[in-house]
């Protein structure tokens, strides 16, 4: 009993102190030059355009540096989490509880010799890691961090995100080709095949929040979740987006392509030192970005009590939600075994894509029924929780029905396969060696 109270106090006191600090900081920064940098510069006598340009550049630097800094923390979280799941301690030598470990890694990688393989295409070889990290950083330009602070509110935010993700696939194939190494090229082809395959259910799943919110901009989608999170209106879409985004980053269980035991690290065989670190950091950043996107698109972003009055609190809500999704993906990574490449492709084209199409059609049908039937909340009461319930219930039941249908199909197919296997026929689950020339 005492231990329980002690633990509760250990958790509650930091939270209370943290909230108080956040509120104090918020009231300090809200009325100062920090919020209206451009205005401060113009008041100081600078030309309007130049002040605008400098304000934009400062915004860009801030928005782009934040994920890089968070990545350093994420490396530590990842290693500690993986270690605890594997019943060991993880980094604990460098700094208190190992917190300085990522910095030590960075320092080590800075000192590694940069070996460029002979015959490599120098331009493409050097540009690929930069392009890979850039494709992740560009997503942060549209991310709504607080109700008032975001890079830019593009009208086409979601489509911009998908377009930028497709730049990352280019970076991979350039990396594989320019290494002048057939294993790197093979690895790069497989990675690109995986990445482009999983973009289809990703985009089809993202169509559902766009339909529900009536807007493609990230800020619009967050604002549309004032009444009800899209996680409850469209759980299958959230599931599809989560799985597809894990596969897009090459995260387990889809990490066949960076598997250390096969293809010797794939397309980044020939990279050493900081370039390799950039690929690595880019992947961590991408996973975190996916967590933040999951929070923004499906769980209401920065919404929470008192979010609008205290932007720093809104930011904290966003970080808590995205931390939850990130930890979920870490858990998936450490608990599930790796998927084979043909299983990967079958899973995508024969399960995820038809499911996403069916989900889209079902949501479209039910949404139109709800809107014509008058159950939808009118724009005035869109932010009222109670008014959103009828529409959410209808959509949720539709999702449940679709999920039940799909599970029945899978169960029947599984039963058939099991019976066939018992009768002695070979099944898809046994490993058949791939034909030569793979």
């Amino acid at each position, binding site marked *: 009993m005492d231990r329980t109270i002690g633990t509760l106090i250990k958790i509650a006191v930091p939270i209370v102190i943290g909230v108080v600090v956040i509120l104090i900081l918020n009231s300090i920064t809200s009325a100062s030059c920090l919020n209206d940098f451009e205005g401060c510069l113009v008041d100081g006598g600078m030309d309007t355009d130049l002040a605008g340009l400098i304000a*934009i*550049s400062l*915004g*860009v*630097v801030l928005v*782009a540096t934040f994920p890089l800094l968070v990545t350093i923390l994420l490396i530590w979280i990842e290693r500690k989490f993986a270690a605890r799941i594997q019943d060991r301690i993880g980094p604990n030598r460098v700094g208190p509880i190992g917190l300085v470990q990522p910095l030590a890694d960075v320092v080590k990688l*800075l*000192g590694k*010799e*940069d*070996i*460029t*393989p*002979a*015959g490599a295409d120098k331009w493409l070889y*050097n540009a690929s890691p*930069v392009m890979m*990290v*850039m494709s992740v*950083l*560009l997503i942060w*330009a549209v991310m709504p961090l607080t109700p008032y602070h975001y*890079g*830019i509110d*593009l009208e086409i935010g979601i*489509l911009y995100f998908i377009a930028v993700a497709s730049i990352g696939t280019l970076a991979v194939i350039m990396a594989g080709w320019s290494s*002048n*190494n*057939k294993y790197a*090229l093979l690895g790069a*082809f497989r990675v690109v*095949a995986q990445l*482009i*395959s999983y*973009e*289809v259910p990703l985009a089809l799943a993202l*169509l*559902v929040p*766009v*339909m529900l919110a*009536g807007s*493609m901009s990230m800020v619009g989608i967050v604002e549309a979740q004032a009444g009800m999170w899209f996680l409850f209106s469209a759980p299958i879409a959230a599931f599809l987006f989560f799985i597809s985004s894990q596969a897009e980053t090459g995260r387990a269980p889809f990490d066949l392509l960076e598997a250390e035991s096969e293809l*010797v690290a794939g397309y980044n065989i020939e990279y050493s030192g*900081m370039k390799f*670190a*950039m690929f690595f950091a880019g992947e961590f950043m991408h996973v975190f970005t996916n967590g933040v996107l999951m929070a923004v698109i499906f769980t209401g972003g920065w919404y929470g009590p008192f979010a609008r009055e205290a932007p720093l609190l809104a930011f904290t809500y966003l970080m808590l939600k995205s931390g939850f999704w990130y930890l979920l993906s870490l858990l998936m990574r450490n608990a599930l075994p790796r998927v084979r490449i*043909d299983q990967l492709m*079958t899973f995508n*084209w*024969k399960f995820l*894509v038809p499911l996403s*199409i069916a989900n*889209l*059609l079902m949501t*479209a*049908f039910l*949404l*139109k029924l709800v809107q014509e039937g008058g159950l939808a909340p009118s724009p005035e009461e869109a932010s009222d929780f109670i008014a959103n319930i009828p529409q959410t219930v209808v959509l949720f039941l539709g999702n449940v029905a679709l999920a039940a249908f799909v599970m029945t199909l899978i169960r029947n197919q599984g039963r058939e396969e099991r019976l066939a296997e018992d009768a002695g026929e070979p099944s898809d689950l046994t490993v058949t060696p*791939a*034909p030569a020339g793979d």
Partner: protein
Amino acid sequence: MNVLSEWAFIGVFFVLAPVLPALPIAIGGILSPRKPNAIKQATYECGVETVGDTWVQFKVQYYIYGLVFLIFDVEMVFLFPWALAYGQLDFFAFGAGLLFIFLLTDALIYTWRKDALEWA
């Protein structure tokens, strides 16, 4: 004009964002030793000498996945404005979208049945 000022941010981002990963690479280039020799720069092939040119056997499956992805990509592009304006439309719009998606699902089923989606 306001579109331009919106996208000015993205433009500056495109220019400044490559600097952020390039900076550590440049610092690494300065700090790291540089001792190239022929063996270190040889192409890695699990420790043995490379055999043959660097090319990969043409496996048509990669191209097929690319083609199917392209078709679905264009389909997505058509569906985005449809989904965006969905709230303002009537039931006819759902029917139009249903027909559109149905035709493409047809194509997917054809591809499935012709075993074009197998990895082997």
